């Protein structure tokens, strides 16, 4: 019976590792590669930690199996071998305290760069953002710190979005902190240029929400009373899911929206279309009617 239990406990970790090894072949794996450069670095960190934990797991399981089998063998009736009493061993205690401490310290230091690039305002890719605004989108800029392209306000249970509008000459204006009469509004449909870093202002109107772009590995809480800058860069054009990742009330599941990353021109055309729709004054086909009148 004891050998049954030894094999039973040794079987599960072996099965676990075997399943993990064959899983990618069957498509059972984590969601596809990150759709943003920062997301790829976050993924690299994740896989690094996964490797460390896997090695640790295999090591401890081998240790466990060793203890199991030797322990079981020693209980055979004719075996004289005695158990080795390891409890209180100073050397072992030092090793298994210091080794994990070094690993954790290594992870803590190693990830600093990624964290700082994502969260520290001074390290945001200002130059690229400014380049996109001035050259890609021909934004009329007289100040250099205002680089937001949209204000996303989470509320129960949707995402309200405010974009900058156009001036009389059709140039894109910078997005001000306070609403302007020229601003353009939309809901649950965030359009932004792809292939360059963009920045949004994140707000909450009521409770705490969380702005989550799973494919881009962006997750940031929206906190009532705060305006939080969030930047991200979609490498490819396309549609990405935007969801709320903080249980915000009974309708939390309704906060399903999308991010549409498109070319600079498409983005501008989208804003122009939004402008046309938002300033629609009910006069249908004015030109053709006038023609008929004449």
């Amino acid at each position, binding site marked *: 019976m004891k050998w049954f239990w030894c094999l039973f406990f040794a079987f599960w970790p072996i099965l676990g590792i075997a399943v993990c090894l064959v899983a990618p072949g069957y498509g059972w794996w984590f969601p596809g590669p990150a759709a943003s450069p920062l997301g790829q670095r976050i993924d690299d960190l994740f896989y690094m930690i996964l490797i460390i934990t896997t090695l640790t797991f295999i090591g401890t399981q081998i240790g466990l199996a060793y203890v199991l089998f030797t322990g079981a063998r020693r209980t055979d009736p004719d075996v004289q071998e005695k158990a080795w009493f390891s409890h209180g061993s100073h050397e072992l205690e030092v090793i298994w305290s210091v080794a994990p401490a070094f690993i954790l310290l290594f992870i803590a230091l190693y990830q600093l760069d990624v964290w700082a690039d994502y969260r520290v305002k001074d390290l945001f890719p200002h130059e690229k953002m400014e380049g996109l605004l001035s050259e890609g989108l021909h934004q009329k800029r007289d100040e250099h710190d205002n680089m937001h392209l949209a204000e996303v306000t989470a509320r*129960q*249970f*949707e995402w*309200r979005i405010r974009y900058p509008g156009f001036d009389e000459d059709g140039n894109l204006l910078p997005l001000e902190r306070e*609403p302007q*009469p020229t601003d353009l*509004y939309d*809901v*649950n*449909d965030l359009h932004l240029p792809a292939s360059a870093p963009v920045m949004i202002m994140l707000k909450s109107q009521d409770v705490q929400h969380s702005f989550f772009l799973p494919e881009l590995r962006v997750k940031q809480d929206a906190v009532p009373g705060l305006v939080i800058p969030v930047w991200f860069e979609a490498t490819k054009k396309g549609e990405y899911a935007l969801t709320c990742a903080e249980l915000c009330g*009974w*309708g939390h599941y*309704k*906060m*399903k*929206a*999308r991010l549409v990353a498109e070319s600079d021109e498409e983005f501008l055309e989208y804003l122009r279309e939004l402008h046309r*729709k*938002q*300033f*629609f*004054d*009910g*006069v249908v086909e*004015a030109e053709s009617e006038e023609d008929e009148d004449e």
Partner: protein
Amino acid sequence: MKPWSFLIFCSLALLHLTGCNSSPPQFSNRAEFDDLEPYAQEYVSEVLDSYFGTPTESVAWERLPIEYHFAETTVSGSPSPRKVTLDVSAGGHGSIGPGTEIHFASSNESNWITEWDAATGLATLERKPTQTIAEGEAVIVGPGAILKNGRHLYAQHCQHCHGVSGDGNGPTARYLNPLPRDYRNGRFKFTTTNYDFSPSRDDLDRVIREGIPGTYMPSFKLLKQEEMQAIVEYVRWLSMRGEIEKQLIETALADYTHEAVKLRIDGGASRGEIETEFNKRVAEGEIQESLDVVVDLMVERWKGSDLPENMVQVATNRPPATPESIARGRQLYLDVNNKCASCHGDAGFGDGPQNYAFTPGKPGPGLYDDWNNPVKPRNLHTGIYRGGRRPYDLFCRIRASVKGTPMPKFDTMKEEDVWDLVNYVYSIPYEEEVAGSGRLEEMVDSAESETEPAAAESESNEVASR
């Protein structure tokens, strides 16, 4: 195994098999339903059951202007016994696909599509039809499918607030302010149709798509066009059902409420006589006739709501929001005849005196909507426009009112005046609030001073005279 663990296992298994609540959803009745005599109640239930069914067994009543089916079209050819080509010149419905039911009118038999080519309208059928299919034969593709899809989507997205019957009383409704819409009056607040009309399909579609900022109605923008259409049709269906119930109780059966019957009994009639008379009127079709009138009017109104001529008409473009236009709008806003300020307040904070006034028949001071819920006039400073922020939306709010609320319609106001008001309303959130600048005299002064260079002087006089 110990007996208690066996018991727990059995009860869990039983719970798993039966579910916690297995009773099917039911339509509820209006509060006024309880005022009717039992035989009248029975009649109302019979009528509603036969024309609308239950939430899970809905009836598609052809008299209502509702699109129940994916398509009603004709056969344009039958290349092989199991293949038919349908006329999709009017555009095939996006939801038609494998598994869609197809009903042939002449043989009155149903078949199912296994392959569908939307471009050519070529459908492969699951089994060979018993009769050969003639060219030009009428078919219904997906009979009742839109209503059915609508019910599923409604149950998934809307029902927890708007209720099974569309009475705005679902389980989550109690946590909301303002309350969710009760469809059963046929009144919807934010429409682009004229005052007497119901919302158009586009209006309902827009509200579902864009949500209503400032309320709990969220945006459902990511739903597909077909899903949106199904929800719109289902909401219209619920609204018409509610209206028929309301009209039945309030008009056709007004003589058979507890109160009316009591009055007649006091006048000498006996309870039995009244019931016999009711049964006679039902048998002779008299009640049905008055119901028919009500249904006809309602159908006409809903049909009319989708016609372009019943939309709020705008002839001239919105003029630019010049200071002069805004000043004129402000004057109109303060004008005693327009009474804007009596609800929305002199400065537009929604704090006008009507908020504190008593109206006969209302439960308390202040303003109430058609559903007898207290409403607050909009604070125009928030920059939140519930019915949409397009100039046309604001124009419609003024022209056709916010239906079901004390907001009046201004359908005789000159168009340029409405536009001036719209321009003024747009300017309110961006106003610089200076003490005294909201008063009428000040407006008149500044409007005049634009032609006179003595603006600064008159202002300083104002200050000095205080």
